[in-house]
Each structure stands twice: as C-alpha cells, then as structure tokens.
C-alpha cells in the first residue's frame, strides 16, 4: 500500500512526530511504500538543521533525514507555514525540501492512505 503522512505538530513538544516516524518505519518494514511526509503548522520545525537535542535524547530531525536517505521518502515542508516560523532553505536539514500545499493535496490524491498525526 502507498502511504503519505501529514505531521501537524512540532518535535519534542508533541508525540505526533515520534508516532509518525514509528508508523513510517513499521510501514516500510512491512514492505509498504511511504511516498511523502508533509510538514505543516508547527510540524515545520521537524525540518530545521539547527536542532541540537541533549546527547541522551533521540535526534528527531536526523531520524527524518536518514529515513529520506535510506528509503527515498519525500519530506516536504509547507513554504507558507515555514516562512511564518522562520524555517527557510538556509536552515533546512538534509532530505527535506520546501514546497506548497498543493503537495499535500496531491499526496492525498495519489496515495492509498493519507495518515494525519497531530492534535
């Protein structure tokens, strides 16, 4: 099955990014495809390379970058939500790209399931 995910919450502040990551890993492990992960609202903060969590904590941003590198998952940050929160090309972590909301709607059309993670 072809999945896409929508993440609506910031990392560390909320479980959504962790749940989405675990969902993506589990889906890939079962042989499903994860086409795109779209970051919206405070979810855009998942994409900043400036993130430096304490040594003994998980690195949420690097985890996403690795997922993109290993499995070709398309990580898309909403341009308008990103600009509003200071997330621009310059501070984007590897594997992420900035694009418009059309990418979210397109993911909904082209995937078998769009799974939303947020409040």
């Amino acid at each position: 099955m072809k999945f896409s995910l929508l993440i609506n919450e910031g990392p560390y502040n909320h479980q959504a990014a962790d749940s989405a990551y675990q969902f993506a890993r589990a889906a890939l492990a079962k042989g499903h495809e994860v086409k795109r992960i779209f970051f919206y609202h405070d979810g855009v903060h998942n994409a900043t390379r400036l993130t430096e969590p304490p040594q003994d904590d998980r690195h949420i941003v690097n985890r996403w970058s690795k997922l993109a590198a290993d499995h070709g998952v398309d990580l898309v940050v909403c341009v308008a939500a990103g600009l509003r929160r200071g997330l621009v090309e310059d501070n984007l972590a590897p594997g992420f790209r900035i694009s418009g909301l059309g990418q979210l709607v397109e993911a909904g059309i082209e995937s078998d399931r769009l799974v939303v993670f947020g409040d």
Partner: protein
Amino acid sequence: MTDVAEAAVLEREAQSVVKKFMFVNRKAPHGTIYALEGLEVVLISAAFDQDVSLAFLDDGVYQLVKGQQTKGLEVKNFSPTYRALEGYDIEKLYVERESLEARGLREDQLIVPVQVVSAREMARLMEEQDVLIGF
C-alpha cells in the same frame, strides 16, 4: 522526459482522479493557528478539482459564528473567508448538531449556509470519504 514535462504529466494524472476530501475542523478559530492554516489547505484543494467538504464539530463550530471581532486580539479576522468558499465551488459544509447545542449555538448565528447533521450522520459522511484531514 524532462523534470518539468514529468511534473506536468503527474499533475494531469493527479487531476484526473476525483477523491472525496473532507476537512474536519475541531478547534476554535482563535487561540491556536489550526483553523486559519487549515483554511489555506481547503482553498488550495479547490484547484485540484476534488470532491471537497468541510465538517465542523467540537469547538470547531465557533469558526462559523457571525460577528467575530478580533481587533482586541490583534489577529486577523478570517471568518469572511468561509463566505468565499462558495466561489471556489466548496459548498458542502456540515455542522454537527450536538456540538452546536452543547455550546448554546443556533444555525442562524452562523456566517454561511450549512447542513446541520447529527453525530451519527456525520460518522456516515466520514465513512464515505477517501481522505480525511483534521485540523
């Protein structure tokens, strides 16, 4: 095939598919950004010629209340945007009756024409959808 040509093909393929999209609004219009940014997605979805509807439940019903004054909050009053949805051919707005009643609201206090439906009917409508996006 160039990237641009490929993108154009993808876009055409995507646009030939019509799915039922429902945007589920559960939060008050102010206090968090969900309603405002959620509405942005609704407007973009109109460009993809999909079968779009909106559901309002829980505190989301407050998004449609007439006469909002946001000056004191120093935030944008985006409630007139709901009236513009018709111009984008987005005319299916469902409001959950139980949510309205629990908040002492009536249909005539809403800024746009809506269909008031029971929680049970709302569940049935959700069941019919291909894509449900909640904000």
